[in-house]
């Protein structure tokens, strides 16, 4: 694996290999000494052109647990705000001695561009680009689902996919890189996906996606799903007339207490995922976020393991 840019690039074998390695990495997190020397002496740059404390510290923790040195480069207050181009910034990092670049960028495709050009020859990890992809988020979601199912069945998750699993992805699909990355990865791993959103928050062209599309969350919940993945809804979407107001959004597409009860009434053990940060009371109620079904904190823990696995694979040669 040279770069991690899109989950659409991952074969089933590659995806499962990352998840399997992440299982071992996660175990390290339970030890007294949480550090591994695998990337000792290597430098990972977190190049963040967009604020995201959560993702940055997750990558930072991952790199540090592998003993890599971490340089955090945030666009705020840096030369980027003085008009320096991505190319110049990237080449500066190369000159500093970076061995891999983790990039978060507001433009879709910026990490792919960095990987495709001759600006720098380093492994690139896409930590979220515009409304395109966020592959490590999808990997940690898949990891969380796979691990929970294996725990429930009392088997080892290693080597397994998500075959037959039914997942609903709910909310602002149009602007969600998490939804896109999850769509490709869940399909690769054998799960079936339903996108649930108001029609204004689904992209034109989504009809060609390998998923079912629904405008009705209650019907999807009633049909029985193994997991619901709630997407963050940003306040400015209301100003841009994607929906009338937060109350109406919450009533039709939020995981509120009534719908939480409906999940419970189904009797099955539907898991609740959210990439964070959550808007409690908008797309998810506090009761849902804090319920035993909620995987929100588990996702954060697993995020570090998946990012360790990703960095390890990119910086230690070719697995497949």
């Amino acid at each position, binding site marked *: *694996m040279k770069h991690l840019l899109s989950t659409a690039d991952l074969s089933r074998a590659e995806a499962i*290999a990352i998840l*399997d*390695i992440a*299982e*071992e*990495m996660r*175990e*390290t997190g339970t*030890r*007294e*000494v949480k*550090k*591994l*020397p*695998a*990337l000792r002496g*290597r430098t990972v740059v977190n190049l963040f052109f967009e604020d995201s404390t959560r993702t940055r510290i997750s990558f930072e923790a991952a790199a540090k647990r*592998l003993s890599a040195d971490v340089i955090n480069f945030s666009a705020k207050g840096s030369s980027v705000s003085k008009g320096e181009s991505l190319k110049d910034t990237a080449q500066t990092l190369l000159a500093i001695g970076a061995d891999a670049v983790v990039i978060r960028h507001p433009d879709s495709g910026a990490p792919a561009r960095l990987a495709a050009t001759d600006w720098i020859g380093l492994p690139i990890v896409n930590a979220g680009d515009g409304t395109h992809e966020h592959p490590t988020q999808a990997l940690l979601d898949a990891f969380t689902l796979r691990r929970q199912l294996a725990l429930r069945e009392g088997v080892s998750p290693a080597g397994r996919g998500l075959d037959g699993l039914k997942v609903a992805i709910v909310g602002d699909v149009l602007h969600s890189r998490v939804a896109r990355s999850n769509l490709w990865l869940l399909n690769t791993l054998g799960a079936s996906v339903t996108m649930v959103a108001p029609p204004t928050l689904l992209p034109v062209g989504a009809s060609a996606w390998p998923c079912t599309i629904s405008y009705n969350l209650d019907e999807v919940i009633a049909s029985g799903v193994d997991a619901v993945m709630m997407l963050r809804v940003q306040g400015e979407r209301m100003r841009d007339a994607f929906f009338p107001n937060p109350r109406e959004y919450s009533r039709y597409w939020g995981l509120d207490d009534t719908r939480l009860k409906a999940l419970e009434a189904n009797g099955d053990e539907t898991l609740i995922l959210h990439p964070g940060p959550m808007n409690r009371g908008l797309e998810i109620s506090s009761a849902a976020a804090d319920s035993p079904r909620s995987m929100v904190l588990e996702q954060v823990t697993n995020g570090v393991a998946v990012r360790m696995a990703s960095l*390890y*694979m990119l*910086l*230690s*040669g*070719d*697995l497949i």
Partner: protein
Amino acid sequence: MNENSQPDVARTVLTGEDIERVLTRVAFEIIEANKGTEDLVLLGIPSRGYPLAQRLARRIAASAPTQLDPASLVGQLDITMYRDDLRHTTTRTPAPTRLPAGGIDGKVVVLVDDVLYSGRTIRAALDALSDWGRPRIVRLAVLVDRGHRELPIRADHVGKNLPTAKSEKVRVHLAEVDSSNEVVIEASA
């Protein structure tokens, strides 16, 4: 295949029976060095050190004066993340580390591997071990010592010393992971 090339010459140096006999001897050596089975932990290094550690543990448990579960003696120590050649070879998938319920703090840990060669694997194992705890004593048991050490490391218990050329390859086959039990030397023609 052209007529000049020859298949690698493979020579069996230990048969399945030889391996059994050698392991029995090594098991007794371990008990003797430890003056019994108290505080003893055998940690196999994946992939073939672990089944060897299990075989040794069964023998050691069997010879113990009191009832002893071999599983309580044995564990697996993965060293992938501690290797010094991660950047230079293809990516290795790490294996799980499993320690016996009693842990390793204050114990006598015997690292078990199939072949001792450069010593780099054992160097990595010693580093890995220190991240899991602080054993009282660490010893090393190997099925085969083929020489060519690159680090100041020696084995406490050796099944067989096997003088080899660097160009040769020593292959250990164990039924738990392979289809047979034998040790062969392959000489690249």
